[in-house]
């Protein structure tokens, strides 16, 4: 334990109050942690961490040694209880902050946005700090009124800001040796680089969101030729259930039940077939649905099979396309290889299917 006699009388009194209110800190930490976790869970924001702590006695002693002249009572200290929310994106810091302000009483006068404190030519610690109180509407215990009067600190920052702050703290406070200015400058340069990286991550996220929004609009409006075929766009296209009519038509042949299964695995086949846009997929659907139906009819009409997979419609569209385009056995084998995986059985099965396809009249 540090020697308390090195402290001023008011600082010594603050340490005594710290001990006296141990139960208050525990309750504050519990309430703040629970409420903050709820806020984050309901916000839709992905965070890397929600950490909370009660400042330990040793840290408080150190703080009072350095800055004790600023404090006259334990209630002047605002970070005995603290919570830190670390997000991936800078935009999310603001979103989380807005939600924190709705739940806790924020002491705006003492809250600080350290992200805005830098001069044009300075880089360094970037974090948003709110000083808050727990409102009685959230928690009230008449035996512990200080839970509602003492303040606590909420730190909100991105993961990159957190990494920089942690390293800065580690270097600055643990070595105990004054750091040469060139090393400090290097640390600041890194802060600038991470600030840029944070902005880039946010920008990229926004661009992807804009792209998805645009694609959604194009798909909704049927402007398929403007939409490149990829996992994201194909998923959105499938949400419009473009193959549902054909699936139902095929199922109706035997009054079969349709077992619904994802069509996403067809993406790699369609790309292998050379399709580049959703427009290409849509043309494939329109131009080969009849042939796919004829193939299905020929395969299942003389059976009593009364369950089919929803994958059958697109499967037979692909097979009909490959056959009618003259891709022959290699084309159909390619389909099996891509869709089901390479196997020695794919070649004979492609040959067998080819024989059956030759007996179907696709012209009528």
């Amino acid at each position: 334990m540090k020697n308390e006699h090195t402290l001023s009388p008011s600082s010594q009194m603050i340490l005594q109050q710290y001990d006296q209110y141990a139960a208050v800190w525990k309750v504050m930490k519990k309430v703040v942690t629970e409420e903050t976790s709820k806020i984050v869970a309901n916000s839709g924001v992905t965070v890397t961490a929600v950490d909370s702590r009660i400042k330990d006695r040793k840290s408080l002693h150190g703080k009072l040694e350095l800055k004790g002249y600023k404090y006259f009572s334990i209630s002047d200290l605002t970070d005995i209880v603290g919570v830190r929310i670390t997000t991936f994106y800078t935009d999310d810091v603001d979103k989380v902050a807005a939600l924190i302000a709705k739940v806790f009483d924020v002491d705006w006068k003492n809250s600080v946005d350290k992200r805005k404190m830098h001069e044009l030519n300075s880089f360094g610690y970037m974090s948003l700090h709110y000083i808050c109180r727990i409102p009685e509407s959230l928690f009230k215990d008449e035996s512990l009124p200080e839970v509602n009067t003492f303040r606590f600190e909420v730190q909100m920052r991105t993961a990159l800001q957190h990494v920089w702050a942690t390293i800065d703290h580690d270097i600055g406070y643990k070595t105990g040796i004054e750091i040469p200015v060139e090393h400090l400058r290097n640390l600041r340069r890194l802060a600038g680089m991470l600030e840029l990286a944070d902005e880039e991550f946010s920008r990229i996220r926004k661009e992807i969101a804009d792209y998805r929004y645009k694609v959604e609009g194009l798909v909704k409006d049927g402007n398929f030729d403007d939409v490149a075929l990829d996992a994201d766009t194909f998923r959105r296209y499938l949400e419009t259930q473009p193959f549902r009519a054909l699936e139902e038509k095929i199922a109706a042949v035997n009054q079969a039940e349709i077992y619904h299964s994802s069509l996403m695995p067809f993406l790699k086949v369609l790309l292998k077939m050379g399709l580049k846009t959703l427009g290409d997929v849509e043309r494939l659907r329109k131009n080969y649905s009849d042939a796919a139906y004829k193939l299905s009819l020929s395969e299942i009409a003389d059976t009593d099979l009364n369950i089919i997979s929803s994958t059958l419609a697109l499967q037979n569209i692909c097979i009909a396309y490959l056959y009618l385009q003259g891709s022959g056995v290699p084309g159909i084998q390619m389909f099996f290889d891509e869709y089901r995986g390479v196997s020695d059985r794919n070649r004979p099965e492609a040959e067998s299917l080819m024989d059956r396809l030759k007996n179907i009249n696709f012209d009528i």
Partner: protein
Amino acid sequence: MTVTINNEGAKTYVVIDGRIDTATAGEFQDAVAPLMTSENPDIEIDCEKLSYTSSLGLRMFLMLQKSVQSRSGVLVLKNMQPSVREVFDITGFSNIIKII
């Protein structure tokens, strides 16, 4: 129809001999019921001696597949006769159940 089940290590090996149709579907269902709750979710079924399956058989394979997947396991059917394989192909079931 007979169904033989062997547990070896973390996998369950099943051999089906005969037909799965209206007459035998109940028997097949009873035989594979323990597999739905087995501690070993990975199941390999040897279909070499499976001579026919109707829609009832497809439904039971599907049920087994769902149960296996819900326990993070894998269902594999192997050595299928061409005529049985055709049933899986023409219904699209080859796309949703792993066949080797």
